[in-house]
């Protein structure tokens, strides 16, 4: 059985790699400080960055190592020294392939410490079978790490200040990262390999897609200067319950440069989907579409939709993600609806009518009562008429 050793096997990416490796039939040993986050089925060995390859790691001869562990807390050089110690141990034990998980920001002159440290470590991998994977902006999976932070930020406010929203980032889904790392672990390599979307997408667009798919809402991204953002980081650290934005992350983003990795992906046979597609695999995305369906159906029906009706809505939307966050005021929002939201409302209307609860809602009361309710609705619509006219004019203009 192929043996895979994963450091940081309980982390955001590590956990995902371990689970995928197990599913692909690897025997997996996860090295980390605690068992927490390590998927069931993997062997766990207590290990901390700075230690060599532990003696009880099992048969290391010919094994593959994916090195993810990174210590954010200690002085930067400790990461390099720790990796050096691990690498020495691996070489001595006759490990076949060593995959170091680096970053798109890895550069000798990177703006953030992280990028410089990752670059430094890349330099000590100089033998065949030792390869660095420069990973782009990872999204998907557990709402943790950078992805978790961005999810929180985009869900918090309709206007998000952000440094340099035009800068291109190269997103990649966490499962695509995991698959890429496993392919490298199997084949080895030398130098560095980029794991990210070959085509960049503006960071502001990335955030907007995240807001739409995850929270079903529009997002306005307000460009701010880096200096101001760094100040905001310091402030955010002092506000209780507000997610802390690390200076390092801001600098990492601000220093991102385009990475040519199309050839790398092709060589690995790895397909990296556009972020819209990748996000739709996510639980959060499904939750958003359920919320949208519940809101729109309730709006057209005037009553809560049942589970079956809601399920049909999600099925009928098909591969599409959420487009609306139905927090009331749909009567106003409807007037301003673009073709996408209008299509969803039509869908909700057609499905609602063709359901038992729809029939009940439409049949409720006496003829007089129904007509009275209808008249009231028409009066409200009449009051809303100027808004509708303005909205139509605005859409056309």
């Amino acid at each position, binding site marked *: 059985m192929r043996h895979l050793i994963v450091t940081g096997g309980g982390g955001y990416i590590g956990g995902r790699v371990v689970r995928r490796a197990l599913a692909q039939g690897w025997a997996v040993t996860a090295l980390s400080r605690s068992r927490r986050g390590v998927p069931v089925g993997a062997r766990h060995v207590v290990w901390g960055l700075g230690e060599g390859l532990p003696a009880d790691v099992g048969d290391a001869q010919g094994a593959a190592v994916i090195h993810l562990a990174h210590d954010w807390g200690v002085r930067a050089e400790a990461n390099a020294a720790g990796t050096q110690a691990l690498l020495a141990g691996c070489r001595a034990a006759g490990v076949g392939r060593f995959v170091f998980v680096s970053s798109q920001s890895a550069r000798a002159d990177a703006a953030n410490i992280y990028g410089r440290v990752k670059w430094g470590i890349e330099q000590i991998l100089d033998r065949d079978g030792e390869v660095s994977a420069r990973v782009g902006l990872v999204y998907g999976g557990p709402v943790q790490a950078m992805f978790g932070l961005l999810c929180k930020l985009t869900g918090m406010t309709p206007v998000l200040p952000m440094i340099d929203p035009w800068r291109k980032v190269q997103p990649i889904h966490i499962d695509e990262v995991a698959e890429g790392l496993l392919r490298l672990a199997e084949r080895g390599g030398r130098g560095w390999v980029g794991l990210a979307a070959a085509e960049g997408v503006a960071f502001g667009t990335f955030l907007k897609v995240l807001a739409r798919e995850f929270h079903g809402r529009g997002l306005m991204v307000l460009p701010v200067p880096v200096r101001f953002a760094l100040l905001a980081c310091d402030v955010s650290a002092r506000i209780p319950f507000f997610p802390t934005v690390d200076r390092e992350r801001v600098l990492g983003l601000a220093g991102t440069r385009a990475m040519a990795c199309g050839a790398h992906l092709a060589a690995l046979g790895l397909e990296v989907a556009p972020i819209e597609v990748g996000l739709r695999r996510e639980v959060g995305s499904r939750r958003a579409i359920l919320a949208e369906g519940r809101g729109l159906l309730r709006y057209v029906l005037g009553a809560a939709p049942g589970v079956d009706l809601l399920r049909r809505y999600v099925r009928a939307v098909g591969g599409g993600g959420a487009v609306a966050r139905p927090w009331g005021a749909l009567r106003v929002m409807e007037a301003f609806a673009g073709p996408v939201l209008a299509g969803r409302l039509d869908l909700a209307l057609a499905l609602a009518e063709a359901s038992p609860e729809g*029939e009940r809602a439409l049949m409720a009361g006496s003829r007089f009562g129904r007509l009275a309710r*209808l008249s009231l*609705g*028409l009066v409200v619509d009449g009051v809303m008429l100027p808004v509708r006219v303005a909205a139509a004019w605005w859409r056309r203009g």
Partner: protein
Amino acid sequence: MGEGVIIVGSGPAGVSAAWPLLQAGVAVTMLDADPGGALPAAPEGTMAGLRGNASRWQVQFGADLAGVAGRGALSPKLGMPLARAVLAGFEAGNRIGVDGFVSLGSLAAGGLSHIWGGAAAVYDAADLAGFPFGEAVLAPSYAAVMGRIGVSQVSGFSPPVGRVWAAAGRRPATDGFELEPARNAVLRADRDGRGGCVQCNLCLFGCHRGSIYHSDQELPALLAMPGFSYRRGARVVRVGVDAGRPVVALSGGEVVRGQRVLLACGTLATTGLVMRALGLARLRLLSNPVAAMAFVVPGLVGAGLPERGFSLGQLAFRLGIGGGVRAAGMLFAADGLPLSTFAGQMPVSRPVALRLARALAPALVLANCYLPGGFSDNAVVLEADGVRLVGRTTAAARAGLREAAQRLRRALAGLGAFAIPGSLTLAAPGADAHAAGTLPMGGDGPGGTDLTGAVSGLPGVHVVDGAALPALPARHYTLTIMANADRIARLLAVA
């Protein structure tokens, strides 16, 4: 294959041509493009019962929910799962491209007759003005076809249509506006394994009792006739002449020979086959410019929906629009339609639109109105790989439909049904599903055919479907296509 006659297509024209030949002892091979796979089953019960039913969505949208997005803009029935299945694959299967034309055709056994409105109109002398023969020639064929398929006049109306009809009985007909109960190919009583109509109002989803005629129903009886053979899945891709005899090539490469070949695969598909065979660059294509409109009978607004109903045409009207032009159409009730088909067109918010649609549904009279084919300006153009249908709505058609709508509005207002402002919708060319006239009988231009639909340049090949009609009056034309196919087959049976 032997010396018999090959009929391409199992739609109303093909089946109507088969009977006289078989009765005269001529062997017939019917080639049917039907790709296999059953059409969606027609729902049982009634529309009233379906309304609150938990499985209604499946009937309305299909198990795959594909019908939710709908094609309803043209006609409510085209968005239904049955229509989608009937129409599927037609353009690709016949190498038809479109440009401003809605191509409606079918590869399914029975063809478009699965989703026709059932309207069975008999052309009068004025309607036959452009034809190379008169009423008397077609009369026996009309009688034979009507006897086979069963035609009845509507007697029980939905409440709003019934009020219009009752009011019409009390008033003298006004300037050129004629109204009469529609004649439909619908059985009133059980016959030949088909059930009589019980007014279940599920017409648009497929008639589970078989009361509404479709030509597929005749296949068992045809199969019982000596000399009849039927091949399903035989899609004809080419027609030609070999050693003086007509031949057809199937999609699998097989070549089938016969004494004669009768093309009955529907105007659009037939036209494509003949154009490719003769290399005809461009042919005129007739269609009936059509508009739809909604009227309301105020006293019925907000009433309960009736337990029984009938979703096909209930009253037929004709009206003159000046210049000797006659427009015609049908009045329908809306109590069998999904509300979403018209709620989407109301200029109010959707929750209100849904309730308004429900309040209006029992009070609505829907009308369609056709102009003669002379108002259309369409063409079939030969291309490297197949044909392209090019459609254009003429200014005359637009003006004619507006004029007709205006007169209809006035006439129905006098009968207690008032037009809903803004409800007039002009459909795109082709949406009428009355494509015709590309290979006209008696025509002397390219593509012209003789009295038996024989194509000059293709000895032994006859056109027996809508393509052979030399003119397209503002009437429903299916019954006439069937009668003409019957007439041609009678001539060929003794030739």
